[in-house]
């Protein structure tokens, strides 16, 4: 059973990626910018995170992950009215064609300045 949280947490970002070093470096970068960050190492953990607190202002999503892929997470989010409106920034080493339509896309290795510009539009 999902909980309908009252409002979007406007400075919190969920990073979903199985690459621990990248996640750690991104947490540092975003923390310096004043964001609070939650992390998930695969798609299933991401959906659990989304169910366990107020919706983040943005989800940064990898595509190739164990257990549950980024595309599956995105599809599951679109089926849930409470999650469908959360902006998703796909950050992947795969081509843009592999990213789900409707999500923002940024190819790895990312340009941190460009990523921060995108994040500022939503958070």
């Amino acid at each position, binding site marked *: 059973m999902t909980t309908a949280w009252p409002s979007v947490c406007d400075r919190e970002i969920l990073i979903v990626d199985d690459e621990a070093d*990248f996640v750690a470096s991104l947490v540092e970068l975003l923390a310096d910018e004043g964001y609070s960050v939650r992390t998930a190492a695969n798609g299933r953990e991401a959906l659990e995170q989304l169910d366990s607190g107020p919706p983040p202002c943005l989800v940064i999503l990898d595509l*190739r992950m164990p257990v549950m892929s980024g595309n599956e997470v995105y599809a599951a989010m679109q089926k849930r009215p409470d999650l469908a409106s959360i902006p998703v920034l796909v950050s992947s080493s795969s081509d843009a064609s592999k990213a789900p339509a409707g999500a923002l896309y940024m190819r*790895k*290795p990312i*340009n941190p300045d460009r990523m921060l510009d995108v994040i500022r539009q939503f958070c």
Partner: protein
Amino acid sequence: MTEKGRTSESGKSKSMTTRVSAGTGDFFRAGLSGLSGAVWGVWTAGFVSLAWLVREFLYPFLGAATPFGLIFLPAILGASWCFGRNAGLLATALSTAAGAIFLYHAEGWTARTVIVLDLFLLISLASAFALASIRRSRDEALKREEMASRFAAVVDSSEDAIIVKDLDGRIREWNRSAERLFGYNRQEVIGQSIEILMPGGRMDDWKKILGRLIGGERVEHFETQRRTRDGRILDVSLTVSPVRDRDGRIVGAAKIVRDVTADLEARREADRTRELFLGTLGHELRNPLNAIAVSVHTLKRRTPEATQPILARILGSTDRMSRMIDQLLDFTRSRLGGGIPLQPTPGDFASICRAAADEIEVLYPGRIRFSAEGDLSGRWDADRLHQVLANLLSNAFLYGAKGEPVGLTARGDGASVRVDVTNRGPAIAEDALSMIFDPFRRGPTATGRSGQGLGLFIAHEIVLAHRGEISVRSDPVEGTTFSVKVPR
């Protein structure tokens, strides 16, 4: 062809072939075929001589009543049947002469003698012509039958399915491989519509193919799908030829059907393996680089001014490594047969040129002379063409004359757009020009510079993927110009 083929199952074909070589007169035909006129003339004279001997043998018993016509006519008929019309004429001439001698000796020249000889001549000529004509027709019919039998045997033993249909799409021929491939017996399928083989959505396939044939087009290795009796969908390759009547009118189509389901599945599997390999390779190579880039970026914000150049160097190397990984992956994909994947969108080539120029001008400020003329709109993968132009511009500065400007000219030209990148400086050697788009080739002045010699190879592959052309010309006076031409 189809009528003959229809009556000749493999067993029948063999018996027909045997019959052809066992007919009466074929002994002579077989033994004497190819003989010159002189030789069949001797044989014909021999026939007539034999008749003469028979007449000489009977004369003592029958006297003047010996029927010379009945004796010589078989010789004429035999010569006509065995050696043709000319032999028949020769036998007629010889027999008539012999008859004239016999009659003269028996009766002298009388009106009856002349009438008998005239009658004999007429009957002999008519018989010779008729028999030679019958023989020729029979020979031709047997030859056609033999050809048809051989053809039917070839069709039947073919490993590929062969189907003949008429202009209404009715099946007229169906070989054993077609039976095996589609699961329908010959008896049940002849006369049926070819549409029984068409999967849903492809019902009009055969009409389109027939239309192309009637329009004079060849249809070879046409890849499509067909449905078997048990509902399976096969990937097939068709080669279709027109079937014409004696007047040259197209009356149907013969098609060779090859099942390429396994080939296509193998190709798809190879594609999947290639994409999996490249995806994994890209993922594994880019991820650590990603962590380095983001960490250094954070570090740059936190550390004092003195360490900034060191961090900038790490970031620069990271960028270069990232570009090299992209190039190696593009190269590997091309060499594995995947080509460069494109994501074309409508756009303006001038903006692609400006973006590439802006990127390179960061390093060479104010040195690109850009001009554009004509309609530059089209549908391309802007990121990939940006990559091509950035590579050409970067090379122009690296290998061109120091301090000289580089020209970037875009021109809309009918159905295509052409872009020239020109630099002054030493000409590229003739032998280097011929393999400049080969992988791992680097110019002689590039010693000590970074890169793998893949830039122009990938530029070439990107332009090819757009169905365009890339070329280069170089001389000491005009400088070096790389030209890219891509259809809109």
